[in-house]
């Protein structure tokens, strides 16, 4: 099937600091948009669509447009957690195809580290709704929710902690090649900065069985912006366009008889790959939301890189490193595990995928042509979102 170039990522900017008390989340967004427009060779006035998940100080009601001083024709404040930006990229692609806009900005800013937000260990959540009233008494932290998926994966398929640890080892290897990630590890006062071994991961403190500390993402400040443009605009921008070839969106949630080891990706990925006319085996770069090790394992299966239940064997032996053939390179920026996780890291998946297809990564895969960015938002063991974007270079 011929690949249709629907729209393109033409500009990007990642906020370089992971702990930045001197800047607000909204300032991160505005400055990042300017830098990303510069990266594309576009101007402030070219922007006619704004996609933003409403985070940041006074950020609700699409306030980012007012803060920026823009009057876009398309405003989308979809907020589905960490995968919001894959949803935004999908929506922007459709809006561009419909001719509603030509230059869309996706923006993100968060002060999770400075504000010491307990993202992973802050449950149970306050009562008062159909869902929280059934969860509040039990103290289900975000990490424990993901850990329940890992526990079931282990019981059902024989997956081991040593296998899951390989994900942390591979992403740390990539982080050590990325100066911003290395700085982040210092700024976050991570204890052992350097390459990790499987043993290091297994010896780190248990947070929620069976997940160890080094299987959990960092909590950082950060943000950034991505510019998505129409094919006509993309042919005039500074850098080579990174084409959006397909997208898929899905939600999944706990049911009475459902399989907790299967995520929303099992629904969003076939849609995205189908639209792109691309097979998982053709993918060079896999940017997969690594909130926790188990998130990646489940999504490698659901994205179609291996069969359900076989991720443990698939990830063994450092197979996901950027310099190993036979599998896609995983999270070559260092990922949420070792570079940055300000709460919703989906935008960074798009950025690093684009850097790889431009040839700009610090762990560059030679001649990378096809990438997948799969974001996951919410609670993998209960209500969560999945957004899949397939990207291609010319």
């Amino acid at each position, binding site marked *: 099937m011929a690949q249709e170039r629907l729209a393109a990522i033409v500009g990007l900017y990642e906020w370089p600091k992971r702990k930045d008390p001197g800047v607000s989340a909204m300032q991160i967004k505005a400055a990042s948009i300017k830098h990303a427009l510069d990266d594309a060779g576009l101007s402030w006035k070219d922007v006619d669509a704004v996609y933003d998940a409403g985070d940041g100080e006074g950020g609700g009601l699409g306030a980012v447009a007012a803060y920026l001083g823009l009057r876009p024709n398309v405003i989308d404040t979809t907020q589905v957690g960490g995968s919001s930006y894959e949803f935004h990229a999908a929506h922007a692609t459709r809006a561009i195809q419909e001719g509603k806009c030509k230059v869309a900005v996706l923006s993100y800013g968060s002060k999770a580290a400075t504000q010491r937000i*307990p993202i992973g*260990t*802050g*449950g*149970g959540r*306050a*009562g*008062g*709704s*159909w*869902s*929280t*009233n*059934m*969860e*509040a*008494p*039990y*103290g*289900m*932290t975000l*990490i*424990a*929710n993901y*850990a*329940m*998926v*890992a*526990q*079931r994966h282990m*019981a*059902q398929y024989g997956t081991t902690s040593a296998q899951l640890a390989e994900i942390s080892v591979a992403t740390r290897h990539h982080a050590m090649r990325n100066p911003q990630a290395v700085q982040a590890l210092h700024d976050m006062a991570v204890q052992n900065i350097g390459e990790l071994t499987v043993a290091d991961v297994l010896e780190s*403190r*248990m*947070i*929620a*069985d*069976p*997940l160890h500390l080094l299987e959990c993402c960092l909590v950082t400040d950060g943000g950034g912006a991505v510019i998505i443009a129409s094919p006509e605009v993309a042919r005039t921008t500074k850098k080579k366009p990174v084409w959006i070839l397909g997208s898929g969106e899905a939600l999944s949630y*706990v*049911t*009475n*008889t459902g399989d*907790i080891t299967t995520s929303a990706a099992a629904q969003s990925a076939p849609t995205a790959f189908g639209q792109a006319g691309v097979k998982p085996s053709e993918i060079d770069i896999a940017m997969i939301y690594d909130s926790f090790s188990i998130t990646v394992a489940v999504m490698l299966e659901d994205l179609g890189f291996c069969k359900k239940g076989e991720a443990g064997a698939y990830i063994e032996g450092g197979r996901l490193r950027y310099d190993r053939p036979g599998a896609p390179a995983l999270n070559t920026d260092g990922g949420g595990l070792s570079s940055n996780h300000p709460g919703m890291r989906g935008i960074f998946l798009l950025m690093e995928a684009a850097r790889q297809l431009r040839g700009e990564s610090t762990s560059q895969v030679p001649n990378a042509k096809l990438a997948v960015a799969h974001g996951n938002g919410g609670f993998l*063991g*209960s209500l969560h979102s999945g957004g899949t974007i397939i990207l291609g270079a010319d």
Partner: protein
Amino acid sequence: MPDRPMPAFPELDTQAYWDATKDKKLIYQQCSACNTVVFTPRAHCTGCGSDNLKTLQSKGEGTVYTFSVVRQNRQPAFAEMGAYSIAYIDLDEGFRMLSTVVGVKDPTTDIEVGMRVKVDFERQDSSEYLVPVFRPA
């Protein structure tokens, strides 16, 4: 030990469920039109949309579908609890609920996927509602 965080009311879907805990009853719903077992409580059937649901009492017997042991929770009620479990329990009547497995010596070693459990109701100091928890059967 401080009480567990408790449900907040008014909340229309879950009121009857929590009221039933006062009599140590674990209730669930089933659709009269298509027999779908509905849980968590709702006013409509998740299988067909019908509002013709009957309320049934569970025997409270089931199997651990999966679990985790929380070693760290910054919220005060749980910070004092030490390591505690959370679990999805598959009740024999066909519904899956979030709860906790208590009454084991060491939650980090004594809980397994597939183990049989039975409901118990844990009284709180400052709430009229009891919290359904599970013990090894």
